[in-house]
């Protein structure tokens, strides 16, 4: 891969389809449901019965405006719904109501954080447009259900989507991943979508092309559709980079095509090429009038917008005195940021809470591939744990060991400390005895300390800590040893 990247620059643009968390569908008042029996959430409009007509959901419009503002787009007071015409069983009208020439938002951006040579750096990724459209239904190919055919379920047909199209500003699979995470975080923080990828609420199409380094013209791109996990996005992009490089190296041309990624085989296959691409015959939907939004309404949404990740980041730096880096890490997800704030409030020293979260909590989460709101750890519990350490009732080390447990099983830290017998040993007698033993067993080290090598104390401390099962307060141990060694 690195050879490929020396020769070629990778150009990636992403199209994301996001489910809006409205209660009813975009153009019908059918409920939005997940996991219901087929066609249990449909109205005449969803089924495209003769005579049915679309009526636009006000909340979906508000959500689209929020998403646009949160990504620094221009929100247009005039946009138009257009019909995208093609035939498919999960598309009951034979057309999808979308937006074409006049979408609701254009010209936005977001910033992703990349690991650079000199530390983390920010890169701005352009957003070409955001538009509203309805989702299609589902075809089920399971033989048990549909035999040799396919079964069509229209529960999902008509669910409101935003299509968010990025500029081709991304240059690697890692950047693509970072963009998607950031975008998802933004959309969740303004509460327009749960963006749960497993439920299909955040799907990505990846457009990939290569060009020789130094060239300015774009190469031919392919589109890999419906990627619903970050891993799949990275894998599919990787496959395309290798495949296209191989073709170009051999002097062949990349053919514009739409591909599907199969996670089972980790391969992509061609769905259709440009030659047999459909002519969608877009035209303004005559059953709908243009969407006209009062600029005052756009302003109201802007004012009432929940805090965005980068605003939160700035506030964490100024209000809690956190470093830029720490603040950014804590605001990667709204859930994490909320947790931090509640824990910091309960504890009283935000910097301390931040340290513990960034070190121990995030580590434990990563190991378990969990998000913080999927655990049993409560902000109050973390604060309580930290206070136990502050009061020297438990050593820091013991406390750190408890974090995974609190994450997995929850509970009250004080109770856990008691149950496990983790109370810090502050009994001077025990520490004294242990210190005496260690000094006696290490005469050379003791001599070196007395000769001025202060640092050797750490090794001796380590042994004392071991003897006391890690439960002695390090401060007490250090003081005791130093006192005894100085004699």
């Amino acid at each position: 891969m690195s050879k490929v990247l020396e020769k070629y620059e990778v150009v990636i643009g992403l199209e994301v389809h996001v489910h809006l968390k409205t209660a009813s569908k975009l153009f019908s008042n059918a409920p939005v449901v997940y996991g219901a029996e087929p066609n249990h959430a449909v109205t005449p409009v969803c089924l495209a019965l003769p005579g049915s007509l679309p009526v636009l959901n006000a909340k979906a419009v508000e959500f689209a405006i929020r998403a646009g503002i949160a990504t620094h787009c221009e929100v247009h007071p005039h946009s138009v719904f257009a019909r995208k015409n093609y035939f498919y069983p999960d598309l009951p009208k034979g057309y999808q109501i979308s937006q074409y020439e006049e979408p609701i938002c254009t010209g936005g951006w977001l910033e992703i954080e990349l690991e650079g040579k000199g530390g983390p750096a920010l890169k701005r990724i352009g957003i070409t447009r955001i538009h509203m459209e309805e989702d299609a239904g589902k075809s089920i190919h399971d033989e048990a259900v549909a035999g040799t055919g396919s079964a069509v379920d229209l529960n999902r047909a008509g669910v409101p989507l935003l299509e968010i199209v990025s500029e081709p500003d991304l240059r690697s699979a890692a950047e693509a991943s970072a963009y998607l995470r950031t975008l998802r975080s933004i959309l969740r923080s303004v509460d327009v979508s749960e963006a749960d990828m497993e439920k299909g609420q955040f799907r990505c199409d990846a457009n990939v092309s290569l060009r020789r380094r130094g060239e300015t013209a774009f190469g031919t791109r392919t589109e890999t559709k419906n990627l619903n996990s970050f891993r799949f996005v990275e894998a599919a992009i990787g496959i395309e980079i290798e495949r296209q490089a191989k073709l170009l190296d051999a002097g062949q041309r990349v053919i514009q095509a739409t591909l599907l990624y199969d996670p089972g085989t980790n391969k992509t296959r061609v769905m259709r090429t440009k030659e047999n691409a459909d002519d969608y015959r877009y035209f303004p939907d005559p059953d709908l009038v243009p969407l006209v939004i009062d600029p005052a309404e756009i302003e109201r949404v802007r004012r009432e917008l929940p805090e965005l990740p980068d605003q939160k980041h700035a506030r964490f730096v100024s209000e809690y005195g956190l470093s830029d880096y720490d603040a950014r890490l804590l605001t990667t997800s709204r859930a994490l940021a909320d947790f931090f704030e509640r824990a910091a409030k309960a504890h009283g020293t935000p910097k301390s809470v931040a340290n513990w979260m960034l070190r121990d909590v995030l580590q434990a989460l990563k190991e378990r591939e969990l998000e913080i709101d999927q655990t049993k750890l409560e902000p109050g519990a973390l604060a309580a744990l930290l206070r136990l350490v502050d009061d020297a009732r438990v050593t820091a080390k013991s406390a750190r060991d408890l974090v995974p447990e609190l994450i997995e099983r929850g509970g009250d830290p004080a109770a856990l400390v008691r149950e496990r017998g983790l109370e810090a040993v502050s009994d001077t007698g025990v520490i004294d005895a242990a210190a005496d033993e260690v000094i006696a067993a290490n005469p050379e080290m003791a001599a070196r300390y007395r000769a001025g090598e202060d640092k050797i104390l750490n090794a001796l401390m380590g042994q004392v800590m071991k003897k006391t099962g890690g439960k002695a307060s390090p401060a007490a141990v250090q003081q005791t040893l130093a006192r005894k060694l100085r004699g």
Partner: protein
Amino acid sequence: MSRITREEVERVAALARLHLGPDEADRMTTQLDAILDYVALLSEIDTTGIAPTSHAVPMATPLREDRPGTPLDPEDAVRNAPAREGTAFLVPKVIEGEES
């Protein structure tokens, strides 16, 4: 001068998922040609700077409150189905992706 060829009629028929027999295709080509010839009349008019009309009677955007209504009884939803499996519509196997 013909405005539409038989090939184009067939291409358009495919787009519209219509099958035309050979005689039918010929007939349609002749008739569509005559119609397109007639509607070419519009090219006489200078429409520079004229905005297209999608809706004859302008009106404000109607919006619907986001309140779910009662969906159809699933039995009613599939009652007219030529083929069904439970409450799902049954069709010949769908190849993943859009139909081409």
